[in-house]
């Protein structure tokens, strides 16, 4: 039993983590493409259209991998988590079904038109296609967040005679207060990934002195959008999420912060290693009273530590939760610093020649991926020991007849297949970056073109 639960969890964790490499960029890029396309029409500057064409090609590769790695996610609810699906399908099946009906049809139909290029479609229709692809991908994100928010904070359900959950209110599910802030926080994370990747490619072109006109366009747009996204990631969206966790998942807050003892005026741990066996934080670097203030807006407010909850309510991977949360916050703070300095240099017209800053932007692009992943680990490990918070514990959710050995088999298969996909992805994106934004417009190597 114990091994089966662990391996089912690892299976989902691995496939979802790999999958989310792709949508976080496509959701971020979808917004940046819409901005670039709008600017192209508004200013009539052909450089913006070249940028749209270049990033649409990168988008297409990411989108294809997002689709093929996304299908297994939808199936895994049934294959690996049958207990959960049986209980909760009457609720979360709605949002997952809606994702297909409202987003996937939209995206798959209009992506081809977006990639088709404005030369044959006309500027206005090309803008419409770009807009609809953005709409589809952001709607898809919302429906997934609404699904996750229901697992974090179940609302709008009724219990059927056989003990399963069934949807009672459509708007209650879609307007779950958890979902709204979680969505804002998550989408800003995706926009940051898009901005850092775009800025890195721009910096790469300027530093290697090729495609410099395009590189400047990328840097300008990425830094302007990125500075807003980086700041709003922390405040208000990150801050509001913290308030929700403090209210609805108190043991999770204590574990994230490494707070073992309840205290009035709880400190905020910047660094330190949680020692769960001895109930303490080793080598702590703390700001006194700061956690009380951030959580309750009062320096001496009482924050409940892990000691005030029975161990059966504690998240079962406290060090992982603590570190992923700290990595997310630490990197988020770093992103604000990078983007604010880059924006300042842009404003002073020194960014394009500040080689040190271009180097920083070039090397920074992997970190938003890490921060987004760490954020999701914080959310999902923080939800433990529950699968549906307060309603269903994780071991009850697995498929009772699927043995650990069978899950190992498919996990190893996915590991191999995704390694090949990862290599292909890097190879194809590298080729696009080498080719640059100055080729002939509208020759789009994608199956969606017409």
């Amino acid at each position: 039993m114990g091994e089966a639960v662990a391996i089912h969890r690892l299976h989902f964790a691995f496939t979802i983590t790999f999958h989310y490499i792709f949508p976080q960029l496509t959701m971020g890029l979808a917004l940046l493409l819409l901005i670039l396309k709008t600017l192209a029409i508004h200013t009539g500057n052909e450089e913006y259209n070249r940028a749209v064409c270049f990033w649409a090609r990168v988008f297409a590769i990411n989108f294809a991998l997002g689709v093929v790695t996304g299908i297994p996610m939808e199936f895994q609810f049934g294959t690996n988590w049958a207990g959960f699906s049986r209980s909760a399908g009457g609720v979360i099946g709605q949002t997952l079904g809606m994702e297909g009906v409202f987003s996937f049809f939209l995206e798959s139909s209009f992506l081809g038109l977006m990639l088709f290029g404005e030369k044959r479609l006309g500027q206005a229709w090309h803008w419409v296609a770009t807009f609809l692809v953005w709409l589809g991908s952001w709607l898809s994100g919302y429906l997934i967040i609404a699904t996750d928010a229901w697992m974090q904070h179940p609302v709008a359900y009724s219990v059927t005679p056989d003990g399963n959950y069934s949807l009672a209110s459509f708007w209650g599910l879609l307007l779950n207060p958890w979902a709204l802030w979680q969505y804002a926080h998550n989408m800003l994370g995706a926009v940051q990934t898009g901005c850092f990747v775009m800025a890195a490619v721009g910096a790469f072109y300027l530093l290697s002195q090729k495609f410099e006109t395009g590189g400047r366009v990328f840097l300008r747009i990425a830094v302007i959008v990125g500075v807003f996204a980086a700041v709003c990631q922390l405040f208000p969206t990150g801050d509001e999420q913290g308030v929700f966790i403090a209210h609805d998942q108190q043991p999770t807050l204590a574990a994230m912060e490494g707070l073992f003892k309840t205290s009035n005026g709880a400190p905020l741990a910047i660094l330190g290693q949680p020692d769960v066996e001895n109930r303490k934080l080793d080598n702590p670097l703390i700001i006194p009273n700061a956690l009380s203030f951030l959580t309750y807006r009062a320096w001496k407010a009482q924050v409940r530590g892990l000691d005030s909850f029975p161990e059966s309510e504690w998240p079962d991977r406290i060090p992982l939760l603590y570190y992923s949360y700290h990595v997310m916050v630490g990197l988020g703070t770093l992103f604000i610093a990078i983007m604010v300095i880059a924006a300042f240099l842009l404003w002073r017209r020194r960014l394009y020649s500040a080689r040190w800053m271009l180097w920083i932007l070039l090397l920074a692009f992997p970190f938003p991926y890490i921060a987004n992943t760490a954020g999701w680990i914080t959310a999902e490990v923080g939800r433990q020991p529950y699968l549906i918070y307060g309603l269903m514990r994780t071991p009850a959710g697995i498929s009772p007849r699927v043995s650990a050995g069978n899950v190992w088999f498919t996990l190893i298969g996915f590991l191999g297949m995704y390694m090949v996909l990862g290599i292909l992805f890097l190879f194809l994106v590298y080729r696009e970056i080498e080719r640059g934004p100055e080729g002939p417009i509208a020759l789009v190597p994608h199956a969606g073109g017409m």
Partner: protein
Amino acid sequence: MATLWFCLVAMMLAIYVLLDGFDLGAGIVHLGVARTDQERRAVIGTIGPVWDGNEVWLITGGGTLFFAFPLLYASSFSGFYLPLTMVLWLLILRGISIEFRSHVKGPLWSPFWDFIFCLSSALLAIFYGAALGNVVRGVPLDSSGYFFEALWTNFRFGSDAGILDWYTILVGLAAYFALTEHGALWVAYKTDGGIRRRAQRIARMGWWVLTPLTVVVTLVTFRVQPMVLEHMLARPWGLIFPALAILGLIGIFAFLRGETTPEREQKAFVCSCAYLLGMLTSVAFGLYPYVLPARGGSEFSLSIYNTRTADRAMQIGLAWWIVGMILATSYFVFLYRRFAGKVVAGGESSEGHGY
């Protein structure tokens, strides 16, 4: 309400088979009908703009099944754990082979992906058929509502059969030939020149395999799952479904004979759709109200009544489903209209988007 959702889910899965069926069929005949790189680009060009939209019907059908009949979704997906996971791997391979084959120009790159495309399409057709065979034959459900089946045991039909026994393999082969026919007719309708001629030949020869196979599978099914025939005889109006399939088969034969014009090719393809639709609706009608029969003992069989969610949730679902389907249909009409007409090997429409 449960019956309505049974029909809607069955309809969505049937649309998936009709639409993705010609993508799969095009993949199966791909290496046979297209010899040069330009011809292969043309074949992929016939499905390129639509294939991922077609595949969305599988995702959406699955999602709809998930919320309307959660217990069925949980039981069948976990019970068919291994074959479903392999279907996922094949879908991944097929997806990337279509998307990535033309990214690199080289003597090894495209032929490699063409081979993967063809192989994964063929295996998927057989897997889907075998899955349908399992649903008809029944699975070892018990009082928990769950089951787990080995991939195979001794291939014999009996109480300890696995996913693959001679019956499900037979259905798998029937599905393979049915989708080959469907894909060949699609490719013939959408292309010109050498590809079109070769696709027509495959369709003409394929008909002579498909027709006897259909008869055999039908007769064997009546033996393996007597419920299908009983339900048909108890509700004789349902005989229109098998009649549709028979008319479809005759239609394909009629429109393939003699001189071929684009109109007759279109009609042959429509008849192939009618055939597939007739076969699938016959199965659904023959099983209703059961959705997953238990082997050896109907008291554990899953029906629409013991797997459904509450009425309220079904009503909520219906409201958004109708809105969503109107939108989705309008995109599809728009997309297929833009994409009407033949794809010419080496011509602008296939070269332009770089296959």
